[in-house]
């Protein structure tokens, strides 16, 4: 379990993490999404004890990070955004080295190699690994001491779809094992797929916080209508008249009262002499929530 209380990190003038408090429970995947520079990586570095918070504190499985950093380090598995590896070692040696650092059980090495699908490449130098393989050996490294708490920073960043799916499946598997998993990600679909609880971080603060479905319901009130008209040249004018946005060839209308919106769409189309080809309703995605929160607006 991770309990964070008013964590703040100041870098000179910049407040990278601003008074963040939360609790992530066992068997839970706690996701943090946010734009670049929101403070996600700084927060995860604080929780992995690489950075000291300017103020606030965090308790991990009952251990105070500030008082017992060494004990905390032995129960967390930290996976940085980019794979950090010793290029000159083989995959097996790399895991062996970290197993020694954590006084881990050496029996885990072949198991982990199999877990991340690298058992056939164990003896190869990491410099010969593909990017996806480096990510996978890094994940194995973070798990070498079977930590109950995992801190994963962008675990699938820059990976091909197959490797990303593999890693996401592994994370789900570990969630079932009852580990506490904190994950930072850019990908909304990843957050939707993996996380039980989600925080949207912006400018160092948690701007929104809750279960993904709750967030969608709470923050994106109403419905989205996607309208396609025949006359391309009129898209801009009609969108302006309706006070809505344009997405490619579609006009996106946000509304809480669908029937009123439909009549307004028809009257506006008539006014401009446009032919409506289709009107569809859209469910809000997590991305919509993200956009709404990070732009600081709520749909009425």
């Amino acid at each position, binding site marked *: 379990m991770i309990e964070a209380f008013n964590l703040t990190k100041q870098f000179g003038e910049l407040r990278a993490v601003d008074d963040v408090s939360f609790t992530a429970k066992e068997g839970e995947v706690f996701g943090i999404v946010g734009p670049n520079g929101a403070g996600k990586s700084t927060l995860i570095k604080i929780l992995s004890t690489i950075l000291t918070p300017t103020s606030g504190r965090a308790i991990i499985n009952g251990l105070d990070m500030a008082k017992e950093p*060494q004990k905390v380090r032995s129960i967390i598995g930290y996976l940085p955004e980019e794979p950090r590896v010793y290029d000159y070692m083989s995959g097996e040696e790399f895991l062996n080295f*970290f197993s020694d650092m954590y006084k881990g059980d050496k029996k885990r090495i072949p198991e982990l190699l199999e877990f991340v699908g690298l058992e056939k490449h164990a003896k190869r130098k990491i410099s010969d690994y593909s990017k996806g393989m480096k990510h996978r050996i890094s994940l194995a490294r973070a798990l070498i001491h079977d930590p109950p708490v995992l801190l994963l920073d962008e675990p699938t960043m820059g990976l091909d779809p197959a490797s990303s799916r593999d890693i996401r499946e592994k994370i789900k598997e570990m969630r079932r094992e009852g580990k506490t998993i904190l994950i930072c990600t850019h990908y909304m679909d990843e957050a939707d797929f993996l996380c039980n609880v989600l925080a949207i971080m912006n400018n160092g603060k948690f701007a929104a916080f809750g279960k993904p479905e709750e967030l969608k319901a709470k923050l994106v009130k109403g419905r989205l209508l996607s309208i396609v008209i025949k006359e391309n040249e009129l898209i801009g004018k009609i969108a302006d008249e309706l006070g809505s946005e344009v997405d490619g060839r579609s006009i996106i209308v946000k509304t809480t009262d669908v029937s009123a919106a439909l009549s307004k769409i028809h009257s506006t189309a008539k006014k401009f002499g446009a032919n409506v080809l289709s009107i569809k309703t859209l469910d809000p995605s997590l991305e919509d929530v993200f956009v709404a929160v990070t732009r600081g607006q709520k749909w009425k």
Partner: protein
Amino acid sequence: MEIISLVRWELRNILFDKKFMLSIIIGMFISLVTIPLLMQAVSYFKEGTLLSALPVSIKIIKIATVGEHPAINELEKDVMVDVVRTDEKNAFEMLGKKEVHGVFIVDSNSGKFYGRGVGLSNLAESSVRNAVDRILRKDVKPAFNLTPDLGLESLIKSLLAPFLLLTPLFLWSLPIIQSISYDRENKIIEILFATPASRKEILLAKVIANMLFAMLLGVVWINLVQLSGLNFSNPFGVYIIFLVIAFLIISMNALVSALSASVNEATLASSISSTIIVTLFFSVTTLKVFPATALLARLSPATYIAEQVGGGASSFPLNLILMLLIVIASALLLAISAFSTEAFAFAVKPGIKQLYEGMLELLKSKTKAAFAMGFVAFSITSPVQIIAIALIFLISRINILLLLAVLVAIEEVFKALAITIIKPRKTNEGVLYGSLVGLAFGLSESILLAPIVDIFILIRIVPMVVHALSTGLFGIGYTNKNALASLLLAILLHLAYNLYLVGYL
């Protein structure tokens, strides 16, 4: 004990680096072939062929003596002293015209010498006259090597010895740079910092692994060197000196790597620092060629190696080793401080302010940090002073007053810089931190100068107080916005004491 695992892995990384090990073996092979060839070449430098070209054959001072004494007969044989036997009246006339540097008269009753000398500003002249003075008046054995037969062949051999022996250390101390800078450049340091090992353990493990490597290879190297023609009277003493210099270079490399942003930058910085270390040691050792400066050569650990080859039964320079350990500890402290800064985890160069913050975090006390800063200031000051002496020597004939003023100013400026980093706010803090910086500085200086001077109180105890006073004074000035004036005052106070000391001597 993560540190043991770390040391094991670091050592394994060094030994399994095939390219590195190959270059070490090739380097050793080249040196081993070169040593006997050089020794052979040196043996062609026979006495008398080049000896006249060396300053050792110059009569540096001229003295007038009155009366008979066996010591005068001894002195007459000396290459550097020109003895004129005359009567008392003539002797003082010569002294008045500055035709001689000093007059020594044998007291017919006691058989002892009394006399007078002209004021000398030339370091070589005053050193030789001092030596003569001691021999004649205090009836002591020559403290300076005033014998004409310096043995050119063995001299050159002995100077070559430390150079040949120490050169491989450049290469041997590279693994620490690779290790620190690689981890940092590739940001592996992030995941190492997230393991249960502390930052101090991680850095020390790297230093220990490199030292173990140098220790193992050092045993092989010293034995091989002896087989190829360089023989040491006390190989174990040479081994210890060798290890201390290795430790110094490795610690400096740890420091520059912790301060550099990339492997390339660290390698460049290390080449500069190692070159400075070896050049300083070697050039100070060459001072043993000139009898007037032979004592100063004792300030270099390489001199011990040279003396060992020269067949001399010189005493082990324990004080020098202690002083070098202070410098090593300072370098390691700064390296760990740099390692502990947040900038390090981000591969950003830490500034001096952050470095000091790292030190505070490590020592957990401003008082301890101030004391440590005194040792750091000393470690930086010493090489700067040696370079300053060389520069003064280049631009002018050595003027004792100028030399003392410059040396004192350098010391006070570096101690003052330490205070400006510590930034005391109140007057009492200024006094406390200033005195601590000065005390640590004075302590290091006394350890260094111990074998050169023999007046225990004046040269070893009082200077510590003077250093503490002068920097404490600066501390007061700094906290009361009078930094420059108090720095000048500190320099004057320190200079006044040093002038008193010179006058006393």
